[in-house]
């Protein structure tokens, strides 16, 4: 295959991943609300019904539990369904299906029934969405054994991780950071990227490690850029997948700097950032020069658009946390 370079937005990269997966495997079907003629409210499924027909990409009634439940049945019966939840906070009617069936079917049946399916969720804030459109719901899914939970931060990763999620033998909750849908990147096809469960170091640094995923990765990178101009070298780790969690890469990174800040948009209490801080502390305590800090969302319902900038971890808040990492010792 000849390498092809194309500049794509994350939305276009996701669309390309869906198209390529559907072309490669006739058992891949895609359905949800407005994914057909409209191409999805974010246009991620644009053109797929036209290209693959109604049987492969279709609109459903407005009922998320029914959508996920039907995907369970189709996955039981030889298909690889991909479903779209229109927005993070609209996925909750499907919660029982996800927790009681999607996550547990392999376990209940001693591995006899697997559910190769992907639940795509446009996710998190930063787009000025009105209420019920900007939840960071990753902790609910990450807390449920049996699910893989993935959150890309770049267009190339969006393509690679979605292709891998579709091909995976286990169900994947695929969190698409809405505010990054329009971010662009030159992508080299075929995309060569590490698999689900592998974190990557996005920026080398020696003084402290910023750990981020999904929408927080660009914030961490920007903070590192600013810090560099102020003479501090920050390393940035992009988790890529929350479950499975790449302890090895994350811990090696933190040990190399001795200091760490976890950056995440979701409410901090009992969130993914808390888990990361705890597990890295357990594993790297003797390498740490300071307690791991979290910069997370406040423990409040997601605010209205005109107040959301207070909620989202920004560069300044990240740098303030870095400043607190006991440098004076």
């Amino acid at each position, binding site marked *: 295959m000849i390498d092809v370079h194309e500049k794509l937005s994350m939305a276009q990269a996701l669309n390309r991943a869906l198209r390529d997966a559907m072309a490669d495997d006739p058992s891949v079907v895609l359905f949800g609300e407005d994914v057909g003629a409209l191409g999805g409210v974010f246009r991620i499924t644009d053109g797929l019904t036209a290209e693959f027909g109604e049987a492969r990409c279709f609109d459903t009634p407005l009922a998320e539990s029914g959508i996920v439940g039907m995907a369970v049945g189709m996955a039981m019966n030889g298909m690889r369904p991909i479903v779209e939840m229109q927005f993070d906070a609209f996925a909750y009617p499907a919660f029982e299906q996800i927790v009681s069936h999607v996550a547990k079917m392999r376990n209940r049946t001693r591995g*006899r029934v697997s559910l190769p399916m992907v639940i795509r969720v446009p996710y998190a804030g930063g787009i000025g969405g009105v209420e019920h459109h900007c939840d960071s719901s990753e902790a609910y899914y990450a807390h449920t054994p049996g699910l893989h939970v993935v959150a890309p931060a770049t267009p190339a990763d969006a393509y690679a991780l979605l292709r891998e999620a579709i091909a995976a033998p286990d169900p994947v909750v695929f969190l698409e950071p809405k505010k990054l849908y329009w971010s662009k990147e030159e992508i080299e096809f075929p995309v060569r990227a590490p698999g689900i469960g592998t974190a990557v170091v996005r920026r080398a640094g020696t003084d402290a490690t910023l750990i981020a995923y999904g929408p927080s990765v660009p914030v961490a990178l920007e903070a590192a850029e600013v810090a560099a101009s102020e003479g501090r070298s920050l390393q940035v780790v992009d988790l890529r997948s929350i479950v499975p969690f790449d302890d090895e890469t994350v811990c090696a990174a933190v040990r190399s700097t001795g200091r760490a800040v976890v950056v995440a948009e979701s409410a901090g209490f009992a969130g993914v950032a808390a888990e990361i801080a705890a597990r890295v502390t357990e594993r790297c305590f003797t390498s740490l020069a300071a307690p791991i800090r979290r910069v997370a969302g406040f423990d409040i319902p997601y605010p209205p658009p005109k107040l959301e900038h207070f909620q989202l971890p920004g560069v300044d808040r990240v740098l303030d946390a870095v400043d607190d990492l006991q440098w004076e010792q």
Partner: protein
Amino acid sequence: MTPDSRRLLPSDAPVTLIDATGEAVGAVPDDATLLRSLGALITARRLNDQAYALVRQGRLAVYPSSHGQEACQVAAAQVLDAADWLFPTYRDTVAAVVKGVDPVEALSLLKGDWHCGYDPYEHRVAPHATPLATQLPHAVGVAHAARLRGEPTVVMAMCGDGGTSEGDFHEALNFAAVFQAPVVFFVQNNEYAISVPLSRQSAAPSLAHKGIGYGIPGERVDGNDMAALLTVLGAAVQRARAGEGPQLVEAHTYRMQAHTNADDASRYRDEADVEAWVQRDPITRLRAYLRDRGALTDDVDAGFTADAERAAAHLRDGLNQDIEPNPEDLFAYVYASATPQLREQAALVADELSREGAR
């Protein structure tokens, strides 16, 4: 009302073909068919009562019995082809067994060795669903996938009267209708959801009337009349297979025993109500009909009883065997391949066990 919408409404009374006295009141299936069903019914009753006894003996944690509902159980499975799917609830163990699942494997869930004890693909029986109605959207998905591939599969999706109150019941019927999925939704209305009577589940004229709201034909059938069940469910399966879309069938029956052994039915219903339903027992009724016609001889009847005893003995023997659970299984089936974290946790348990062994 248009003729088309009238077509979707159930009959005013449940369809009965053999009445409670054993008298034929309609076109009844042939004797051979009914004899086969009687044999299955007698075994079904025996298995229900054996499982109930095994709870008292401590071999099963709990058993939600379909005692009294066996005609529904047998018919639901007997009207299907081998390639058709059955989606049972926790009260439908007997239906799963009639579809082919070994009763010992079917009761693994309630014995506690594992959750689903059988291979769902072997007899095309989905795992028992405990969260009410959640299996119904799965049934739609299985049917839709089969239809997309042009396969003639029909899916029998079972639930109870209580289950019809759940959102997934509504979503499944609606999806099935929109996609014309070949699903027969089979509601066993046994009048109670644990302690709550039907009047607290629904104010609809009948549960079968719910079909019209989705564009699905609804039918009501006497749930203790084997002949009527075979006829009504059989026709529903045929229509679904012929491409006429989903069907809704409500069987009127009665939960003769408490919800499970852990329940006390005397707190919420009169024993006299139960007595009235004893008179409508599905086995007594079918036996009387076949005896009357001379189709059921003492020898054949004795053969059915012997078959039932053999099935009960097989169940007893199977459930009396202690299977040492393997702690490694805790981690073996969470993902296709264990995550590094699960490998660590499995190693922790293995280490605990080895230290226990060393003590």
